[in-house]
């Protein structure tokens, strides 16, 4: 590890813990501290929890330029922050939960932990259902992957509630900036599937993002886009 990276890591862990004391307990086992990255809208302005629509799928890239994530504002009163989750390797971690009023603003990697299906610029087979049922899940307020039928509960740390996925979606640890009140991504929790992802999707990622771009860490800011703008076709199931 480079000295600069190490210092950055320490700083972001400290910042994350300062912003969200729950992390203190989770930090040793659960959280991988990564670059502190500001979420911005298409105009470059910070993203505030109140400006997000409940139920809308938003996409941003984190911690790498080619790894898409969901940002969701969930209905109030359902979020189970701190719920213990388990990776496929058996590592238990308490979900850091969300931010904003009631902790309803949550983020997860949008890469399915079964076989890594994820939203691309062309198609989105995996996304969050609100206000309508996912047919495969038989309910709403879930993230369903249409490729093989894995269903995740975003209010419970994207825990698997049906289908073949062996572990929850990787959680993205968020915090609110003390100064501008905007959203920041500071780390990840749970499954680390990025290495596998870059290997399996090398050709596709090159096509979508350019040579060697997808693997670069996001630094500074990352742009938040509604799913419907990010992808040409959203597939429901």
């Amino acid at each position, binding site marked *: 590890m480079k000295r600069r990276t190490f210092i950055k890591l320490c700083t972001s862990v400290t910042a994350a813990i300062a912003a969200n004391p729950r992390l203190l307990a989770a930090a040793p086992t659960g959280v991988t501290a990564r670059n502190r990255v500001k979420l911005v809208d298409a105009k470059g302005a910070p993203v505030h929890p109140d400006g997000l629509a409940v139920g809308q799928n938003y996409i941003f890239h984190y911690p790498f330029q080619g790894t898409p994530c969901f940002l969701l504002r969930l209905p109030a009163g359902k979020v189970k922050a701190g719920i213990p989750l388990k990776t496929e390797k058996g590592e238990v971690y308490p979900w850091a939960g969300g931010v904003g009023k009631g902790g309803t603003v949550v983020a997860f990697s949008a890469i399915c932990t079964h076989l890594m299906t994820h939203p691309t610029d062309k198609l989105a087979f995996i996304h969050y259902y609100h206000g309508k049922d996912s047919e*495969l899940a038989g309910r709403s307020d879930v993230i369903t992957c249409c490729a093989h039928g894995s269903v995740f509960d975003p209010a419970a740390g994207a825990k698997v509630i049906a289908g073949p996925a062996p572990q929850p979606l990787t959680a993205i640890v968020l915090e609110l900036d003390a100064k501008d009140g905007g959203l920041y991504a500071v780390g990840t929790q749970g499954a680390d599937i990025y290495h596998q992802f870059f290997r399996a999707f090398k050709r596709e990622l090159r096509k979508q993002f350019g040579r060697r771009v997808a693997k670069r860490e996001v630094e500074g800011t990352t742009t938040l886009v509604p799913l419907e703008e990010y992808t040409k076709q959203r597939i429901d199931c």
Partner: protein
Amino acid sequence: MKLSRREFLATSAAGATIGAMGRSGAVMAQAVRSPRRAELPRPRGPRVVVVGGGWSGLSMAKYLKQEKPDFDVVLVERRAMFMSCPMSNLWLAGLIELEFLVHSYLDAARNNGYLYLNATATELDRHRRRLYTSEGFIDYDYLVVAPGIGYDYAAMGVKDPADRARLAQDYPAAFRPGSEHLTLKRKLEDFDGGTFVLTVPPGSYRCPTAPYERACVIASLFKRDRLKAKVVLLDAHADIVVGRHGFHEVFRRLYADYIEYVPGFEIETLDPGRKRVVGGVGDVDFDDAAIYPPVRGAEVLERFGLMDPADPQKEARIDPLRYHLLGDERVYVTGDSRPMPIAKTGYTANSEARYVAKVIAHHAEGSDFTPWYSPEALCYATVSTHPHQAISVFAHYIYRQNEREVVTYTARPDVDDHWDHAKALSGLEWARAFYREMFD
């Protein structure tokens, strides 16, 4: 060639077995008992040999390595290139290129940390834990046999071996990928009209939706080309096996003039010369056909002594929860040769492999792996080619133990009647993701 006494006895026994099967026993026994060791690097951990590079074997090889990285995994496969049976109906219809279906075993092995031996497994000596192949023998700590299905033409009442050979060659089922599929595609391209017969075999067969999907795909082509042609689908079952409502609706609404569905059709025999299917309820003459005979466990099970002789489908004699050969916890049978009534599909094979790899890894570490969990199958079946539309079918299994401790599995299929393009796209993603999983 110098043989030890035990080797000589084993050779004779093998010769007898093969002879009893009607093969040229003596010649084969000579060939299979090559005393040469296969050219492989020295194992660095417990060696697990996987026989068969289909969906089950490829998934097993990958997950064994993932579960226990010090396993030294060797995949023995006689084909030099992989071709997928799932999605092959779409290729028959011209919806995907052949490149979508074919993949490299070398990629699978080098990307997933195991070795691929392009060889035919010929004989098994469980006492010595030694597998003989056309490229030499391999000593194993664990053996996984995932040989897929065989065709049982005799069980379809075709008594004359010459007729069986002719059926296999002239009217291939196209459920074991390779030349069978290439030939069927050529037949469909050359077909100018008349009756094209497809059959659904009795019992458990590979890919429950596929014969119905194939009927739709072929009818869709006939309809597009305005051929005076009909698909006659002779089903040994009383009704459509899975996706019942959806397929009935599709047959009625899209292909009323192109598909004649005949349920409960028991084939008494087949006359390839006269192009005639002889059934209990009457005969059906055809202009061309793809005859799907009853399915059995692959022949290699019988040769290796892994077959359950009491099983009408000649499948493996294994523990239904742990998958090991009864009486030998070093030998496992997975995939379409398993005797449990789990759908014979690529998805179940992959899903099951995740579990069985854990069972074997735990056994190697001296612990018992108890929590059985169900393999799953979510399948997308194409019902129309222009536009490309599909239905979906979902199944999982439950484990029940009755008072006599007999284990049974029950499939609970969930059917989606509605067909659309989104499901067709999901079906393509379904497959792409699995190919990536097995090969990248």
